[in-house]
């Protein structure tokens, strides 16, 4: 026994908080500790120019990085009615309100139609700052509608996941959104339309176990946390510390779960190239497609 016990500091959480202040003029990169000028960071799509650390970005910012120009947003007005009347340490209704004031969104996903490298595409981008990007009925509904729009207009779908999983405050209804969106993706699949899933930090729980893993291509941003069970739950189950890099994008690539790890600055071009390969317009394989 040592005389002086070294107490462990909580993992990285405070650092994360400190860096996520886009209002500030300067920001410290949690990857390389470099002090970065915020405006420079915006021009590099919020990727550290020195160490390529990917800062988390909001849904609107994400659409900006993907679309060629302006886009049409859909279903902006959809809002949860708090169907269970859920109250934990504070009422779910209050959480919805703070989500709205933090992000300007009524729920954790923004869906839009626009062009990616000239290809008209339905995109859904998740908003982490809205209750951890969690999926309740509104997220499920908006994504299902986006997929149905894609089928009707014969357009590809891109979903950018950034979510802690199903939303507890809507109970089993949230769980069922996994089924709802996956069923819509089955129709998209049978209609031979492309679906590209982009997994960003973090993508866990019910979102991973439904649409995030169902892409014709699954593309992850570097070093994103991607998994089903959260690392803490797994540590409690196995009573061991998890190895470094476990459940990160590169780990999933190694285990065959994703197609590629792509730097955000290359993401749009990568998606564009894939969509051209999957282009639904020409009809060369079958008469009924």
């Amino acid at each position: 026994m040592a005389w002086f016990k070294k107490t462990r500091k909580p993992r990285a959480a405070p650092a994360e908080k400190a860096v996520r202040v886009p209002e500030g003029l300067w920001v410290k990169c949690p990857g390389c500790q470099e002090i970065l000028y915020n405006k420079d960071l915006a021009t590099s799509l919020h990727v550290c120019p020195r160490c390529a650390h990917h800062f988390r970005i909001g849904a609107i910012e994400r659409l900006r990085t993907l679309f060629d120009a302006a886009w049409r947003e859909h279903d902006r007005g959809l809002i949860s009615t708090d169907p269970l009347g859920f109250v934990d340490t504070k009422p779910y209704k209050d959480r919805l309100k703070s989500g709205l004031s933090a992000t300007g969104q009524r729920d954790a996903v923004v869906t839009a139609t626009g062009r990616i490298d000239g290809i008209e595409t339905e995109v859904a981008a998740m908003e982490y700052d809205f209750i951890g990007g969690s999926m309740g009925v509104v997220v499920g509904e908006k994504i299902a509608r986006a997929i149905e729009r894609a089928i009707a207009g014969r357009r590809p779908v891109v979903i950018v996941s950034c979510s802690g999983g199903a939303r507890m405050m809507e109970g089993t209804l949230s769980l069922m959104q996994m089924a709802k969106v996956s069923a819509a993706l089955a129709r998209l699949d049978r209609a031979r339309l492309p679906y590209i899933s982009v997994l960003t930090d973090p993508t866990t729980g019910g979102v991973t176990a439904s649409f995030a893993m169902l892409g014709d291509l699954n593309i992850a941003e570097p070093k994103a946390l991607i998994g089903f069970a959260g690392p803490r739950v797994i540590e409690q189950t196995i009573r061991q510390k998890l190895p470094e890099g476990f459940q990160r994008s590169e780990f999933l690539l190694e285990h065959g779960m994703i197609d590629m790890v792509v730097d955000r600055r290359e993401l749009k071009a990568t998606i564009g190239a894939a969509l051209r390969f999957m282009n639904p317009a020409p009809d060369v394989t079958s008469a009924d497609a």
Partner: protein
Amino acid sequence: MAVDLLEFEEPVGVLLKEIEALSMMPRTDQRDAAIAALRSRAEQIRAELYARLTPWQRVQVARHPARPYTLDYIERLFDGFTEIHGDRRFADDHSIVAGFAQYHGRDVLVVGHQKGRDTKQKILRNFGYSRPEGYRKAIRAMKLAEKFGRPVLVFVDTPAAYPGIESEERGVAEAIAYNLREMAALDTPIVVLVTGEGGSGGALGIAIGDRILMQEFAIYSVIPPEGCAAILWRDASRKAEAADALKITAEDLLARDIIDEIVPEPNGGAQNAPEAAAKALDVALSRALAEVTAIPPSERLDRRYQKFRRMGRLGAEFVEETT
């Protein structure tokens, strides 16, 4: 019945002990009459307790170690069960069983979670926590049923998908996701029975179907109440509050059209009278199966799609504000 009693069944336990004590006495008409009176009193108290179970008590009933599991029901409801094994990818997961059998004279495919009763069985079945191989075996078996035009019957009873390193390495999320998509489009009738714990994605991964039935005291939740309490209340011991808030009982789910029907359980729950529980299940299952096989095949998948599509309805669970 000498089944393990739950904490809230204490009043019943007291009477059962008295009955046991009386049974030791020499047999007289008086003694027998006293025992009979106590028995009926015990049943009455049990009925009263079970008529107003709290959600947390239901969680305990759903997890009861004597509750019938998939193989117990298969033994009682089906003939000639032939188990098939393995996912053809990596392994055979014993926490999910699959096989073909006869149900009232018709060939069906049965798939279900399986928990273990004794320590050895519990380890073999991994306490009902399925790994990716289990989900992959399940969908492989279901595609077999689709190919040969047989209906699929699914028994759901799992705490969750297994949260371990190998589960993540072999893609448990992908395995569940794939099943959700493929079951939505599986071109054969599917009836799902939630018989115990409907443990979030681990349950849903085999629970897409044309009819979802749920036993009276079963639960179906997005997260275990302990986990929810630990995250939202930062205190896992507030599980009873979480169980309440999450609305996980059969009645709650029926009210929101998440399930189609509640299958009644015998007094004191299925664990108290497995034969009677199986009988009630048989009645509901045979009716549901008849209904879904009567749906014209051309409509079945569309109706299944609409069923899940409507979970979360405009004007009920969400509304549209003008922007």
